[in-house]
């Protein structure tokens, strides 16, 4: 799958009269995994929404390759870029298998019959999240972790070169968080999918991502590989947090120890 990069150019975005991010120019490296980090309310979800064409910028542009995404047909984009919002809505009574099938919508004509490829891709998505036995189960009867994985299977079935996720690990316990992050890492390494996720845990973000975009209360603090972004002075700027950063004994990635 050829990697296409997503980037912003002097992006200003917000709600009605309220501007949240101003003059933001960043690139999300193609084929890599990026974490967006920052304190609550700094605009992580807003940035992700703008990147996924859910929110129109008041100024500036978002490019996917050479195309301005706010001038591209939304259906074409849906084959390039999948977004999992933080709070997706579950239709009443929906089964996991049906939910995952909806991920195929971008690739199917209006009345085209269900193809073997569609079935296979949905099956693979369920296997990737470890939910292959759950297709016939109602979503509402699953645990929080299982439900999150079912939603992930939906966007995996969308089969796009880019995957945007808003806090895919919130409300999960540590083992489940790691499970989800591993799954995304595998997708990134094996399929070359560009993964962009909003995360909260600094250590896990540094451990599982190639690239970090660090936002603070006044917009972008810095961006780059975890080692150069997760430093005491940057954490102070972004979170007003006093911390030491050591390298973790297993992977040598930066590990934050609050003071």
């Amino acid at each position, binding site marked *: 799958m050829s990697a296409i990069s997503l980037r912003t150019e002097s992006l200003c975005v917000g*709600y*009605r009269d309220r501007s949240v991010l101003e003059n933001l120019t960043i690139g999300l490296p193609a084929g890599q995994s990026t974490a967006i980090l920052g304190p609550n309310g700094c605009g992580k979800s807003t940035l992700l*929404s703008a990147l*996924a*064409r*859910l*929110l129109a910028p008041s100024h500036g542009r978002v490019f996917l390759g050479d195309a301005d995404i706010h001038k591209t047909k*939304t*259906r074409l*984009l*849906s*084959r390039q*870029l*999948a*977004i*999992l*919002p933080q*709070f*997706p*809505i*579950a*239709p*009443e*009574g*929906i*089964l996991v298998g*049906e939910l995952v099938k*909806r*991920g195929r*919508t*971008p690739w199917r004509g*209006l*009345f085209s019959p269900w193809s073997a490829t569609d079935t296979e891709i949905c099956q693979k998505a369920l296997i990737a999240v470890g939910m292959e036995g759950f297709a016939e189960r109602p979503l509402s009867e699953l645990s929080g972790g299982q439900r999150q994985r079912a939603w992930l299977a*939906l*966007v995996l079935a*969308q089969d796009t070169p880019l995957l945007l996720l808003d806090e895919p690990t919130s409300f999960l316990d540590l083992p489940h968080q790691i499970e989800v992050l591993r799954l995304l890492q595998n997708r990134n390494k094996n399929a070359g999918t560009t993964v962009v996720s909003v995360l909260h845990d600094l250590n896990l973000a540094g451990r599982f991502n190639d690239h970090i975009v660090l936002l603070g209360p006044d917009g972008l603090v810095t961006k780059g590989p975890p080692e150069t972004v997760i430093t005491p002075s940057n954490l102070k700027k972004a979170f007003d947090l006093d911390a030491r950063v050591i390298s973790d004994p297993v992977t040598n990635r930066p590990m934050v120890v609050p003071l």
Partner: protein
Amino acid sequence: MNRQFLLIFLLLAAASLSLALGQVSVGPAALWNGLTGGDGAGALTVQILRGPRVATALLVGAAFGLSGSIFQSLLRNPLASPDVMGFSAGSGLAILGALTINLAIPMPLIASAGGLLTAILVLALARPARGHNPLEGAPAVTIVLVGIGIGFTAAAISSFLMTRLTGPQAAEAQRWLAGSLAARDWSHVLQLALIGAVLVIVLLPQIRNLRLLELGSELATGLGANVKRARLGLAATAVLLAAAAVAIAGPIAFVALMAPPLGARIARTADVGGRLLAAALTGAIIVMLADLVARASLPGLQLPIGVMTGILGAPYLLWLLSREIERGEL
């Protein structure tokens, strides 16, 4: 799992009963004779008196059921339906207005214009609160409440217009306003069938959008739906379906509200397409049975069909409202 066939069976049963029973009841043999094109008094009753009436009931009910089902999926709220949200009342007001000034425009057109204008008014007044997701539009409950208010206003103006009408026109308007299938002939059936067929053809390609919108506007956009356009298209289709039914049978209340949840429960279907079909079938069954009871229960008296649906629908609406209040939705 899927039990649409149960609904189809109920529909056939309701249709047979409606054709056979009434002030003068015909037996099974005469019913069969009438359906297969025979003649004789019983057969003629079936063909001329009751045939068009039952067919109209079927189409009107199906149109209301579809309309309610679209709105309830679109707004993800069981209170959403063209009658509760005042669109039917808007269509009704437009028709009364046209009667008052003797406007010679076909009823379905006037009803559609009234319904669409009311819908635009409701949507314009129901502004989203600050801090609300800009993709989502106004919350369903706001739209429903504004719609209820607009509906009452339209009904009040309709009552005023009623006082301006005199003579046979007034009687006709009165009967129509309460909802009535009396004196419907095959031309009404044909009219409604044509409009209904066009609207169903318009609806079919939009079902995919409806299915995506159920997942919330963010995921729907991510999966390729143009959310604003999709919502407009579906809402317009639903308003027109209800308007077509109102133009022929009057603003019969509660059918569009009750048919979708009842149908989904009987057919045990969760998918959008299945729920639309179930709502259409259930709407048809409700209107046929309500009309049957309205005309055959009290000898020598024809109750307005709206009274019958109200007896069932009003308690259901109250139950829904109290449940929504309990859940903190209202």
